[in-house]
């Protein structure tokens, strides 16, 4: 069970969205972490064969996935970032439709659809028309369709976007249930999501994989450390321009800053444990003096 991408590249008219990426996915959960525009969706769309790469290949156990055609699609589950629904189908209709469409034999379709409803907690909403679903329920229906054919490769593009905290927890548990014996690739720009779900984390920036590894490995390899510093209030702005600041807690006359830096930024700074968030910031974060329009959490 091995999904290998080699020199994978995608150019749009002006932008190179994915640039010469090499990687091998094996069974397990992979968290693709990157700011908006990093190329996550483009990469995933190529892996699902929806989008033809400009260059490079994708193979599944040594076979070219484009050549595999529908045999590849049979083992694929995909939840797009911009997931659309059939407005006048009920949730149950939808799953009963997706099952045969995904190649499940009609005799098994019903049982499979019911299992998915149960798994995603949609059983009591199964008679609802999809246009009446809330954002969270829609996404659950989306996950149900992605998993219904028991895919070997499960691609989830920003599956947690727009979920409320309890839905998010439920989703994490669902992923850990699904994690065995398949490749799960999920993208997000939310650090805490990957930390809790993904065994392997891929940091993606400007179409390239800049860092890969488990959470511990990434933290170990991160050149920056987190320092807690006490600074007078009027110096806060200067610090923000000079360093990467991951948090600011303002007190009466001074502020507690958490600064990312290789060296001790100032006397009296206290070294703290590095977190994945620090790694993310170290990788993507610009100092607030730089221009930054990315909503990085």
């Amino acid at each position, binding site marked *: 069970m091995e999904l290998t991408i080699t020199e994978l590249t995608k150019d749009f008219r002006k932008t190179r969205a994915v640039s010469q990426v090499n990687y091998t996915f094996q069974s397990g959960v992979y968290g693709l972490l990157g700011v908006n525009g990093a190329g996550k969706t483009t990469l995933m769309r190529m892996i699902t064969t929806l989008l033809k790469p400009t260059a490079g290949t994708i193979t599944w156990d040594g076979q070219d996935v484009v050549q595999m055609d529908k045999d590849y699609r*049979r083992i694929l589950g995909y*939840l797009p970032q911009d997931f*659309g629904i*059939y407005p006048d*189908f009920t949730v149950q209709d939808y799953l009963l439709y997706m099952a045969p*469409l995904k190649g499940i034999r009609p005799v098994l379709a019903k049982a499979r659809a019911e299992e998915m409803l149960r798994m995603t907690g949609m059983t009591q909403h199964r008679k609802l028309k999809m246009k009446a679903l809330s954002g969270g329920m829609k996404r659950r229906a989306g996950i149900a369709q992605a998993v219904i*054919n028991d895919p070997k490769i499960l691609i989830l593009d920003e599956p947690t976007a727009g979920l409320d905290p309890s839905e998010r927890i439920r989703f994490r548990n669902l992923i850990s249930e699904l994690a065995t014996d398949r490749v799960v690739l999920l993208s997000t720009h939310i650090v805490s999501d990957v930390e809790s779900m993904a065994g392997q984390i891929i940091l993606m920036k400007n179409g390239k994989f800049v860092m890969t590894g488990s959470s511990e490995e990434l933290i170990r390899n991160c050149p920056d450390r987190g320092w807690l510093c006490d600074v007078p209030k009027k110096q806060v702005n200067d610090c923000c321009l000079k360093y990467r600041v991951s948090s600011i807690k303002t007190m009466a006359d001074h502020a507690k800053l958490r600064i990312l830096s290789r060296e001790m930024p100032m006397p009296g700074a206290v070294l703290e444990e590095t977190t994945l968030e620090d790694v993310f910031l170290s990788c993507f974060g610009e100092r607030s003096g730089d221009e930054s329009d990315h909503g990085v959490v």
Partner: protein
Amino acid sequence: MSLMGFEWKKVVTKRANQILLILLAVLVAYSCSRAVRQVEWMDGSGNAVNGHAAAVKLRREKEQWTGVLDQTTLEKALAHLREIYSTTPQDLQQGENNWPLRSRLQGIQDIADLLGLAFADTYDTFEEMVEKLQPEDLSRFYEKRVEALSVQFFEEGNWGYANYTENEKQYIVEQYQSARTPFAVGYQEGWVQVTEQLPSLMKYALILLSFLLAGIFSDEFSWKTDAVYYNTYYGRTKSTIAKLWIGFLAITVIYWLCVGVFSLVVLGSLGTEGAAQTLQSDASYWSTRYNMTFLQYYLLTVGSGYCGFLFVGYLVMWISAKTRSPILAVLIPSLLLLIPMFLHEIYSLFLRKVIGLLPHWLLDIPQAMHYVYLYQVGGQVTSLISIILPLYSCLTLLLVFLCYREYRYKQIA
């Protein structure tokens, strides 16, 4: 439920499509009443009756003239016309309000028109013809018909711009000569009205239907279900075929329901008499080169309309699949129906002939019956209808294939 079942469900649960079906029903109802109201009967003082009641009266008037239009009938008709003209006071024959004359002519109007057309070159007015025509002239009625038509066709200033070659002239004359004579005549209002009104019903129905068809493929994009759909096992194969079948089913069901209900109502109300009568026995088809009966003519109109629906339908589906949006696709039928308007502006014979092959004719056989241009296929002269039917049947198959290909290899950006 099968994949096709779900595709059908996508179509019928869509609110816009439900509204569309209601509009289609309204359209059919309106067309029926319009067609039936076309039939008129008038009493001696100019009071007109329309619709079914008029049909009943008219049928009774025409009853005695039903049969073959041979020498005996022609002589009888001429005598009857003379009788009508001689017993209707002169002052009531002229002017706008010649109700008594018009009322009395109603039963024999068709035959009177045919006589007038055949002998138009010899007499200045119809009254003069009725007065002077001799029985031996009548024996040349069918000869005179071919003669009059040939002259009309070849004469400069009439159809002059068609510039027929010798081959074509010969073909035209042969077509006219091969009409089965004597004509079978009689009451045929049901068939006349049903065929006359079908084209406009078909055109509007096709415009409405295209809104439904344009959604079959493009809705996946507007619903944003495309990404998942294309990634499924059958999304690019079996399910695309299911969509193509749904298109076929929608076209077929809607077409035959519209045409069927319309025909049943109109023929039911005006009568089915005249099915075996000669098409040319109606004066408005006097000059057509297509020799057939009213029933054959009706079947041709309806069959070629269906061919047109399939062609335009799949064209709409293909364009909507290609552009991923229904907007351009729903304009296609209207554009195709607008084209004939520009035909008058074109003076190049070649261009006229090429544009003349456009598919709007399929929906308008009554107009195509009068189409003047001829085509040469493999040295053989043929006419429009014999070309467009096979041509568009083939193109439809090609479009079905293109639709399939479009979805089979579609990329989602």
